[in-house]
């Protein structure tokens, strides 16, 4: 018999500390597989965020640093400008990317930095205990919106990917999810494209991944898959938001 699916080389053997049913582990693996398949493990530098994925450097088997909360796009910019032939990506949650790091995200995109961003959106601050994130849904209960998010008080879930798509500097933006095998395989295709774009010097690519946080949502891991389907996707629709390749061909 031969092994057809197993831990990719770009993932260490270390057991992750994420909660049971958390989507981060799947996204970590997708990135590791893509890096293996593109043969770029030895020239990749990852930038981990502050949030649940702050320990990502323990799980990836390539060079990884950790940035201050929200600053990965600035750190990645510094790295990429000095070493343009390396593959540089950031891995950020919704608080990191769309709240405290909004400016860094918007301006890295606007400069067309030739980097890849994997944006994991689960609608809450997980690590600090399930507080409201910028992407928290209307009426969603969190520890800081105990009665549900009221837009009159706390604004609306921010569609940062759509906003970034409006910028001239962004090249490719797609929203995917990992709530089913089919969607997970699609997510991997998008992540691969975002890395390939960088290798081909196309510029700023971002993949937003809707990801499960069963603990903060107060559901079990299986219910969390449905939660994404029924609650998140209607607000954050899946699909390509921007692809300059397709625009050029007139397909989008």
């Amino acid at each position, binding site marked *: 018999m031969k092994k057809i699916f197993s831990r990719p080389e770009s993932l260490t053997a270390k057991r992750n500390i994420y909660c049971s049913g958390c989507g981060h582990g799947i996204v970590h693996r997708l990135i590791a597989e893509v890096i293996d398949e593109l043969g770029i*493990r*030895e*020239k*990749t*530098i990852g*930038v*981990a965020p502050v949030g649940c994925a*702050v*320990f990502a*450097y*323990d799980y*990836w*088997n*390539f*060079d*990884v*640093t*950790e*940035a*201050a909360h929200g*600053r990965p*796009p*600035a*750190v*990645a*910019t*510094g*790295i*990429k*400008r*000095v*070493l343009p032939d*390396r593959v540089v990506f950031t891995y950020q949650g919704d608080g990191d990317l769309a709240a405290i790091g909004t*400016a*860094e995200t*918007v*301006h890295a995109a606007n*400069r067309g930095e030739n980097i890849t961003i994997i944006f994991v959106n689960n609608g809450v601050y997980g690590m600090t205990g399930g507080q409201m994130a910028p992407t928290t849904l209307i009426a969603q209960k969190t520890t800081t919106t105990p009665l549900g998010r009221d837009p009159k008080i706390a604004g609306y879930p921010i569609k940062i990917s759509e906003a970034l798509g409006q910028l001239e500097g962004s090249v490719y933006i797609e929203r995917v999810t990992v709530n089913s095998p089919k969607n997970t395989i699609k997510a991997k295709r998008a992540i691969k494209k975002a890395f390939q774009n960088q290798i081909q010097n196309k510029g700023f690519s971002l993949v937003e991944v809707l990801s499960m946080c069963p603990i903060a949502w107060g559901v079990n891991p299986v219910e969390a898959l449905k939660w994404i389907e029924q609650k998140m996707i209607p607000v954050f629709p899946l699909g390509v938001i921007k692809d300059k390749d397709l625009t050029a061909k007139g397909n989008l």
Partner: protein
Amino acid sequence: MENRILMQGNHAVGEGGLQGGCQAYFGYPITPQNELTQYMAKRMVEERKVFIQAESELAAINMVFGASLVGARAMTTSSSPGISLKQEGISYMVGCELPGVIVNIQRGGPGLGNIAGAQGDYFQATRGGGHGDYYLIVLAPDSVQEMYDLTREAFDLADKYRNPVIVLADGILGQMLEPVKIVKKNPMSNFSAKKDWILDGCKGRKPRMVRSLLMGEGVLEEHNLKLGKKYERMRKSEVRVETDNLEDAEVALVGYGISARICKEAMEIARQKGIKVGLVRPITLWPFPEKVIAENVDRLKAFLVIEMSLGQMVEDVRLATNGKCPVYFYGRTGGGIPEVDVIVERIEKILK
């Protein structure tokens, strides 16, 4: 005369940075250091190096973090309010042991303050500045020549200790023009080969991680103790101070940066009047030249500290005297400049 060029202080910092081997510069506009960012916009591109006008000071310091992480000599510059924003990144750089040069062309504060030269950021610079438990070497030029020299040397010091270095100047030094002697040398010769900690892709080696989050029991303490030993080495080896006329002095003026130049003038005038005045000019504000103060406590009648603040360095002078010699203070704040006549009057009053 040796070959001198007339140069603005801000430009001298930029050129000093280039001669120090700066490979990546990240700036954000703020008065009174704009000429520096503008200078780098031109010169870094001429030298085919990295220049970015960042979207904020926060982004700029984190770009320095990234550039330094992959082995480049990197610099960012700003003025007081912008330096406050950079403190987050500076703390992370220290935690990750990343070198880098940060230049503060101080202006009046607190808050937005004004754009006049001031020295209100002494505490911030010499006590770490950001969160956590750390120190940085702080260099204080007092001339356009030293803006050039000390910025150049800051890169070596940063690499030597794998720690950020601050050049603490002010708006007057930034804006003024003076002749500068440009000294060219190979800046990378000493340290470039030793960067065996950078992230540049794990080809041919094990993957590395650079981080400052150290959650395991006792791990952070161990790390901080290691950094502490580094700070001790800095304290032992890097103190720089200029002294003048201390041998027969009754009163020593203590000032840094632009205030020190005012002190020098006051000392000359006092000496013309027959008053025996000496000078201590700390060039490194951290490590502070406490030894030279302590050594003179018995001979001197008093120290008079001159600053463009409500009194910050004066505390370090008091600590160094350890109560064994009176320490007086005269300062102007909010952009005010200490007056030579007033300094001389104060000295006369002290000696009465």
